[in-house]
């Protein structure tokens, strides 16, 4: 018969496993996109989830936002995170054996690189990493409504840099 401790341990493991299974690929891809190094991405992601497991066994909550914030903080120490997106894209394509970026994609990456970091990050979190407004807000340190405002402003800035016509008012 299960004791209370073993049953709660089992429930904790199940919750962590569900979180891990759902979020590990997303967090790893988030780090991979910004470092260009799959191996480094796996290492950083492992560290994120080791810390997450410690927090959960300590009785603390771990949400998706926390995972990405932790990944971002660890990534800030990774020198590759300072590389231009076009360089990161090329490194990933070479490693994965894929075709290099098309001219249009290179133009997009160049435009993203020329944006202020705040604009670039909200665009990437939304359109590459697929984070919800709440998750993006957790990473950026703002609420969901502010995320929409920032996303709106970032899109305007991207259009200007990429030379797309602005939408009519």
């Amino acid at each position: 018969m299960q004791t209370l401790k073993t049953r709660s341990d089992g429930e904790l493991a199940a919750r962590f496993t569900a979180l891990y299974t759902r979020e590990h690929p997303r967090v790893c891809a988030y780090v991979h996109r910004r470092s260009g190094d799959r191996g480094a991405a796996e290492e950083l992601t492992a560290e994120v989830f080791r810390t997450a497991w410690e927090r959960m066994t300590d009785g603390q909550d771990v949400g998706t936002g926390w995972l990405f914030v932790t990944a971002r903080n660890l990534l800030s120490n990774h020198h590759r995170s300072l590389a231009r997106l076009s360089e990161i894209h090329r490194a990933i394509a070479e490693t994965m054996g894929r075709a290099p970026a098309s001219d249009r994609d290179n133009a997009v990456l160049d435009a993203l690189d020329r944006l202020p970091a705040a604009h670039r990050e909200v665009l990437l979190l939304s359109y590459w990493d697929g984070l919800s407004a709440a998750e993006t807000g957790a990473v950026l340190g703002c609420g969901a409504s502010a995320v929409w405002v920032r996303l709106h402003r970032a899109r305007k800035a991207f259009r200007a840099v990429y030379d797309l016509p602005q939408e009519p008012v």
Partner: protein
Amino acid sequence: MRVKSLIANADPVPGTTEGTLSARAAEELSALVGPHGAPPPAAVRRSPRRSPRRGALVAVVACGAAAALAGVAFLSLHGDPAGPGGHRAGARSGPAGQGEAAGGGALADEPSFGSTAELERAADVIVRARLGAGHEETVDDVRTTVATAQVLATAKGRTPGDSVEVSYTTPGTGPETAALTAGKEYVLLLDKGEGGRYVLVNTTQGWYEVEGGAAVPAEGNRVALSPGVREALRLTARGR
């Protein structure tokens, strides 16, 4: 071309699949959760999207009670309205959505929901409310209207009182605004925002005008509200 499509197409790591763990990730999971958690994967398969290199992605095949429990927990959490993924700003797994409909025109880059279940799951709160006049604020050069909506009925979630403060880009100031009018009655599908305010889940599907006791979707929104939500809000089905 839409900004979202341009940027999404340049993603260097496309096709990230939830629930698909690499062999390394599966081993690390087992090492962390120990005997109470998932057993090591009994069988693996290579992901067809990746080139056959060392360390290629493989999928964990659910086996054993613990893995099945994880799968149930995953499905449970994925369906949890409060959990992540309720609406992803850049999700490409869903349909192109109403945001790209011709009628939406410049409504290009918001997330959109292809089904009633997805839409209602995305909202923290679903209410029937009468919209007040509100005031304008300018945040980061974006004109925003903040209005108090008097709650008449609630279908999902809890509001702090009998009214909610709703923040939305001022109509007429640019793309992705909701054509809300003070004094009218709406069904509002809301996300919790900053400072106790609420925001629409998106500008096309986050509101339905109440006309003749029925919820009328905005132009470009082909998703209807569920019978359960309509009943909770004392609304009738709308003939199309």
